[in-house]
């Protein structure tokens, strides 16, 4: 069977398996979930090795008719970009399961429901990156909201219901705009060579569109992705959702789901509407830069540790968006790599933050203090995750962030310069919570916190390992990403700016 399809089926099978385990066998359920996600992760890694990086065309392609009347196919396939994101998703899933071993308890519903939702979500996550049929993509794009909605609302904390609704409404609104654009595309495709949703064929379609049409359709897609990503000023759902969700859910939400936004920008906005992309690039860059700075400032001002992480993500997504629309190979590869890295560094931050919160029973940063002395391993994990978040050289996110900056600078120096100020703000928004939570005297209420147990250590170790390893040696990913990025850039009719003062001039 097709590698992607089987990866999508595995979680469903897993959830069926979990469904038949009796409710009271909680441990069994958890083990089944972990086993399933591990199995998927393994198959993801195997796909990774089978992937031919040099080949820029889609791989692991499977196309079967779904709704032939509308030209809708079940079409999956990956290029470097999608593969990297799928790999990230499947690697994070078992970590989330393992890290959030007890998250599933104490929710509104049974443990079983939690893991079924997680597994269904995993299917959707793989599908959304693998789909090469826009309709299929849309189906996954929208359908994946539902499990997340229930994960937030059913297992979260605090204002979980409100946050879940906000998340869902925001996303649905964006999704509906995208639906309008998809319909537009579909109709235009029907007028020029027949109804189809194949991304490849649709990317030829812009030649037939008037600039206005193209701009409108582009906006439909872009706003949907900008909500997902989230780009300022469409971000306000994220802090609420992240604060309310369980850490594991937050990891999947920020680490994977939100990547759909930036992924979509590359895969759809750019590929389908090259002219409109060019038209809107200045505006988008401005929004991206605002996101970077704004997210950073709000992170600095955040009192709640989960909200803080959410705001840092807004800042990071600003970088990714900027890299995408910089239209240079560095910016693009950097953005893609950033997506992967952000997944892991945010995962680390959220997981550790989650452990801190569950031990302390509070997510307010000032409730912590002096953790470094009480729980050194946890503190260190948080610190390393934080360092990754502020893009310390030697950790993975540095490579991507710097690539984005360099790539942007070569074409849009002003944007890059303003964005670079973000790195100072990043130091602040990481070091302030580090100081408050990890340093200083051990504040009352924190004396008896326990350090990470073996399970938690096993969960966090691979994340940190990835963060460190990719910081020093990002080549395995870059080798896969570069051809895909170069392909996008080239298909947009862009070439990297030539150094203005090059010796060869």
């Amino acid at each position: 069977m097709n590698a992607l399809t089987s990866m999508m089926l595995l979680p469903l099978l897993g959830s069926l398996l979990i469904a038949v385990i009796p409710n009271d066998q909680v441990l069994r359920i958890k083990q089944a979930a972990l086993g399933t996600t591990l199995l998927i992760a393994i198959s993801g890694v195997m796909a990774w090795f089978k992937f031919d990086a040099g080949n820029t065309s889609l791989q692991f392609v499977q196309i079967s008719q779904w709704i032939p009347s509308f030209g809708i196919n079940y079409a999956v396939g990956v290029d470097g970009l999608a593969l990297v994101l799928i790999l990230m998703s499947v690697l994070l899933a078992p970590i989330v399961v393992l890290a959030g071993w007890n998250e599933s308890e104490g929710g509104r519903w049974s443990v079983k429901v939690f893991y079924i939702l997680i597994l269904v979500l995993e299917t959707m996550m793989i599908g959304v990156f693998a789909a090469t049929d826009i309709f299929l993509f849309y189906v996954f794009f929208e359908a994946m909201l539902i499990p997340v909605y229930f994960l937030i609302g059913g297992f979260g904390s605090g204002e979980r219901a409100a946050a879940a609704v906000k998340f869902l409404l925001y996303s649905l609104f964006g999704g509906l705009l995208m639906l309008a654009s998809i319909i537009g595309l579909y109709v235009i495709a029907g007028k020029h060579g027949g109804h189809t949703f194949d991304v490849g064929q649709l990317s030829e379609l812009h030649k037939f569109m008037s600039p206005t049409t193209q701009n409108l359709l582009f906006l439909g897609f872009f706003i949907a992705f900008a909500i997902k990503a989230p780009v300022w000023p469409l971000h306000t759902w994220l802090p609420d959702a992240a604060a309310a969700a369980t850490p594991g859910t937050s990891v999947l939400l920020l680490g994977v789901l939100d990547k759909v936004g930036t992924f979509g920008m590359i895969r759809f906005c750019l590929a389908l509407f090259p002219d409109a992309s060019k038209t809107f690039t200045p505006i988008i860059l401005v929004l991206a830069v605002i996101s970077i700075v704004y997210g950073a400032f709000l992170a600095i001002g955040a009192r709640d540790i989960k909200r803080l992480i959410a705001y840092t993500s807004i800042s990071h997504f600003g970088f990714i968006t900027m890299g995408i629309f910089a239209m240079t190979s560095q910016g693009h590869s950097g953005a893609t790599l950033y997506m992967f890295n952000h997944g892991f560094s945010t995962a680390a931050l959220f997981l550790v933050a989650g452990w801190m919160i569950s031990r302390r029973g509070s997510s307010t940063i000032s409730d912590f203090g002096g953790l470094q002395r009480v729980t050194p391993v946890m503190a260190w994990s948080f610190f390393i995750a934080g360092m990754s978040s502020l893009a310390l050289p030697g950790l993975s996110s540095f490579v991507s962030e710097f690539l984005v900056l360099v790539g942007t600078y070569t074409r849009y120096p002003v944007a890059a310069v303003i964005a670079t100020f973000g790195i100072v703000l990043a130091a602040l928004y990481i070091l302030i919570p580090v100081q408050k939570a990890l340093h200083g005297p051990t504040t009352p209420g924190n004396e008896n916190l326990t350090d990470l147990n073996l399970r938690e250590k096993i969960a966090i170790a691979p994340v940190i390992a990835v963060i460190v390893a990719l910081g020093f040696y990002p080549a395995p990913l870059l080798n896969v990403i570069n051809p895909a990025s170069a392909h996008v850039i080239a298909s947009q009719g862009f070439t990297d700016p030539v150094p203005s003062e090059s010796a060869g001039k």
Partner: protein
Amino acid sequence: MTTSTSLVYLIALPLLGATVLLLAGRRSDKWGHLLATALSASSFGVGLYQLSQMLARPTEERAVTQKLFSWINVGTFNVDAGLLLDQLSICFVLLITGVGTLIHIYSISYMSHDENRRRFFAYLNLFIAAMLLLVLGDSYLNLYVGWEGVGLASYLLIGFWNQKPAYATASKKAFVMNRVGDMGLSFAIMIAFATLGTVSFSGVEEASHTASKAALTAIGIMLLVAATGKSAQFPLQAWLGDAMAGPTPVSALIHAATMVTAGVYLIVRSNFIFDAAPTAQLLVVIVGAITLTFGALVGTAKDDIKKALAASTMSQIGYMILGAGLGPAGYAFAIMHLLTHGFFKAGMFLGAGSVMHGMNDQVDMRRYGALRKFMPITFATFGLGYLAIIGVPPFAGFYSKDAIIETAFNAGGVKGILLGSTALLGAAITAFYMTRVMVLTFTSKQRWEDNQHPHESPLLMWAPMAILAVGSVTTGFLFTRGDALVHWLSPVVGEHAEGENLLLQPIVVSGLALLAVAIGVAIAIMKYQLSEVDAIAPHDVSVFTRIARKDLLQDSFNEAVFMRPGQALTSLLVKGDQNVVDGAVRGIGRTALGAGSVLRKTQTGFARSYAALILIGAIVLIAGIWVVTQ
């Protein structure tokens, strides 16, 4: 160019130490410090081996490179994880590993009572590795990794005792201000890539020959910003004083001998840029001149021995930056001062640590006095360092500082006179405040309580101090003998054609310098040795003193200009996000709900009004269709 396969061990060994110590945790408490020290020492060994190899090769083949792997390779942006060891970097390598090892040894004893000594050594090893990467990286980006790596290590070490909130804050401040500088380095790299298409030293050097002045000036200025951050130069100097929160060996190693001099390294390393960008170069000397005065002035008012030394460090690095800004004539002298400073300042810091060790961690010099008797070895080593720093021949500082002052005078025109005079004034003030330190600590009357029991430090501590003292005495002479260092570095920084018409002859400069020193020393002795000193800092002091005690208001300035507005902006944005951005979204929701509530009132429950609605609908429909068809 020669390649080597062993450069990586320089970095790998201490990095291994850091990794092992951090991962092993408490299990390595017993032997961790030994391992770290051994690894640092073996890295020094590798350095010596490399030096011997280098010496064995002809001048033009002395630089060696090692490409580890292709690090970042996207489009035309190709950065290898590559190391470069040339005449310049070997100086640093030996300084870092040598002094570093000594400080490791010192710390074994100094930190012996700290339950987290292992972690301390891990950080030290981490620092050594990062610093070596900084000086060994063959491109700006590799340098950047080390650059931030040392920043991290510095952060960790300053905040080593972060259970004290003030120390935690100090470490954060250091990191953030360093990041501001790092931003400059980022900009420099971005500009370099955008304009020159490369970020490796060799590539940039090659491209710099043909590149426009504007581009190079921009890069140069940005590199200077980076240097000011890392080297605590004006205007990013404020963190260094607070950085003294770290254990004293840290201050000695990082905040005196090595890390803070990275800025100098960066400028000297980028000599090809600055040489081609006079404006940037001018800014460099201005920064150097301002800082050397600034640091010196602050140094006169500090009662905390470490802070006084820190101010002195700032000032001395000002000299180095000044030297580095003077072009090919000054590069070698800047490096020379850097090396000699590395010895004497490290020695003095260790001495200060020794004093604190003997005085129950008391750092206020007004509570010292007459320690000469109780700590003779410390007094001797500290004294030698003192003589070196104020520039008394034949101690090391004399040679290096004198050379910079001389070069400054000879920079030509008014600029030369201004720079030279500033440097000279700085020398006088240096002499004053260092003498003040010396007198207050060792020779003046006892001002400590009787329950203090000052005592000499153990062998493990004083031995490194002694070795460094030897260095303070000898290095200047060694480096200048036959212009050894100048010649050694010339393949890297370029030859300086001896000027024809010098403003002042060397001997005149030396004379003036000595005179200035003598004046400074004399005033200090009068003021502190020969008159009574309060054990508690007096408050009825001049405005100048008050300002100087407050580091010339640097913190007040930062607070007023950056921190407060920043905080205000943050809280404004937080509120704005809740009320305006999110408020708009919620507003839309409320509007829809409100519209729904209003519109549902049309549903009055009266069938007749429904009928009216239908009737009106029919009218509108007919009228509408009619209008459309007309």
